[in-house]
């Protein structure tokens, strides 16, 4: 009896942690059509979410809901999420594993892309290998098409929930060079 109680109380202590990702898995079922069941999306215009930083996912969902970021598909998806839903979804995708298959663009000037990424000091915020931290997203393993769209959206102010941090960087980079940067990053894992 004591053993059962001890084991059960261990379970209860952990249960808050357990519930988040597990609940997130259920809530993510409606997201699977675009982002894949495990956050590995199948179409390059839908970003991979597997292994993304939880805080970034949470903040984007919040921004979609509040209108600080806008997308014809994501805005309605985020409209009715509660704060707990957002935490749970963020936890779920953050704990998933990227399957190594993203849309890479290899027929670009990758060395130019790397040179420009180094010059723009991207890894100071995105960390080495573009692995991300907190509200600064992981970009390694992301689809080329999605990366270049974000860079151009920041440049042309179609996306403004970056507090100027991204737009100040991309504002003075030619579109063709942005394509090389996005191509370079798409080859990173």
């Amino acid at each position, binding site marked *: 009896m004591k053993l059962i109680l001890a*084991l059960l109380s261990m379970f209860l202590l952990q249960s808050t942690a*357990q519930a988040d990702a597990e609940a997130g898995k259920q809530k993510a079922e409606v997201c699977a059509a675009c982002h894949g069941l495990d956050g590995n999306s199948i179409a390059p215009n839908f970003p991979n979410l597997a292994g993304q930083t939880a805080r970034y996912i949470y903040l984007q969902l919040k921004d979609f809901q509040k209108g600080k970021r806008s997308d014809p598909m994501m805005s309605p998806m985020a409209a009715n999420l509660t704060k707990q839903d957002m935490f749970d979804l*963020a936890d779920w995708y953050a704990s998933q594993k990227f399957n190594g298959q993203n849309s890479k663009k290899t027929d670009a000037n990758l060395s130019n892309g790397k*040179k420009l990424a180094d010059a723009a000091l991207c890894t100071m915020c995105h960390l080495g290998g573009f692995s991300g931290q*907190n509200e600064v997203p992981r970009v390694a393993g992301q689809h080329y098409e999605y990366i270049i769209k974000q860079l151009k959206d920041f440049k042309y102010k179609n996306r403004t929930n970056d*507090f*100027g941090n991204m737009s100040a*960087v991309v504002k003075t980079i030619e579109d063709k060079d942005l394509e090389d940067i996005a191509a370079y990053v798409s080859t990173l894992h």
Partner: protein
Amino acid sequence: MTSISKALVLVGSVALAAASATTFAEEIQGGSTTSATAMSSDLRAVTQSRLDAADGEKTNWLQVNGGYSQKRFFPGSQINSSNVANLKPAFIFQTQILESMETAPLVVDGVMYLTTSYNHVHAIDAKTGKEFWHYKHNQGPITVYCCGPNNRGVAALDGKVFMGTLDAKLVALDAKTGGKIWETQIADPELGYSETMAPVAVDGKVLIGTNGGEYGIRGFVKAFDADSGKLLWTFYTIPDKGHEGVWATHDATGRDMHRDIAAEKAMLKKRGGDFYQTLGGGVWMTPAVDQETDTAFFVVGNPSPDLYGDIRPGDNLYTNSMVAVDLNTGAYKWHYQYIAHDVWDLDAVSPVVLTEAKDKSGKVRKVAIHGGKTGHVYVHDRGTGELIRFSDAMVPQDDMWVLPTAEGTRMLPGANGGVEWNPMAVNEDLGLAYAANLHQPMTYHVEASEYPGGKLWLGGAFKVIPGEAQWGRLSAVNINTGKIAWEADTDQPLMGGVLATGGNLVFTGEGNGSFNAYDATTGAKLWSFQAGAGVNAPPTSYMVDGKQYIAVAAGGNTQLNFKRGNSVIVFELP
């Protein structure tokens, strides 16, 4: 299934879940310590009287920067300029964390304390590298850091070691067992507060500053009770009134900063002064302490947002300043501001060093010195803050102080300096301060941006200029004259810090893995070792059983993206 086996199944699934990476909404508590070997009873507690004498310590390395004066000078001369060419590794201690290492290892009675990124602490045998214990901190759900998840080391006092963490806590561990004694929340990480610096322990208090100048925090130095973790006092680096200062138009060296004072005054009238809550002013590195006068000295970081100054009119006191406060109460004593209304992130970070230098009339004075991102070493009177002199520029300067633009304007130094957080070392016999410098030509870009609430807030961007060479420079500065005594250039900008020893030596490491020893008098490079990862941490030295060792971490650096490693390497003579 019976109820027992059901419970077992549940526990099994929980264990699997717990093993996965820490996620956002988990409630994290505690931290865990594992013990490899029991420590012998030779370890004596680091008492206050031992710390009082740490500046002259001939055996141990009791504080990250040597002693309260932070001269980073080890008197031992067993390893010296005639034999350092024979220096070889004694052992390598490999940690679990392959990420930037900025730790300065402490050594107390043959026990070395080192930290890693993400707040692991190891206590190891300083002679053999055998591990005694290993503490892993459980981070809370929010950790923010601008420049890498690194940690610069611990402070030791009365049987405890103290560490600041990425989730803005101060933890006290038992020095012998690594068990956690207390933990206290320093500030709210959701607002951008976090710790990478090493605290300093003095007179029953632990002093620590804060990160966050890139996040719109209100900076501070706090003092906590070493026994209980209770908060004793707070000195805010941003006063609630008067932060607009004197509307200085020129910097500490007399250069025009091109401020539009009229526009700033109009903005202050329009917005009011309550933006002090998000004005920045982090304190990045360990304060120096003068026990004769009960004063703590530190330098304050940049205002927020770094590049966009229009919405923060005024001098933005006490950002970019050296500040002196009362050790017991935190009361303000004096300040000296290097750059008023900084819009270049050329903030004061390298820790203050207390030493002596001649004033302009040749009289020897007690001074407090600082190596700036601006490229100058500043020498102040310790009692009043009066700027006695500033050195010749250690690195190229160009177009200071051209204002940032939307398209980007070039200025030297770049935003990392000059001297970044790298602690200097001082050899008082030679009258030389040794500074590790960066030369990184950059363009400064500005973009209007309102306070985002605990998120990165630069108000623009910095970029390096492809095609313009970047390099580093170890400079020896005569603090009595302000002249450069010698310079040793390196292939890459320097990040890490300097050690000076009584063996006429100066040690510093490079991002390409070279760990070097130089002749302290002439700057000749006498020895170099390839560590296999960036040597970007301050070296330390110590003796065990009559033998001298040099220790340095080789973990690379996030900010400059130098090759990552996971080890502390200890060197000895054959």
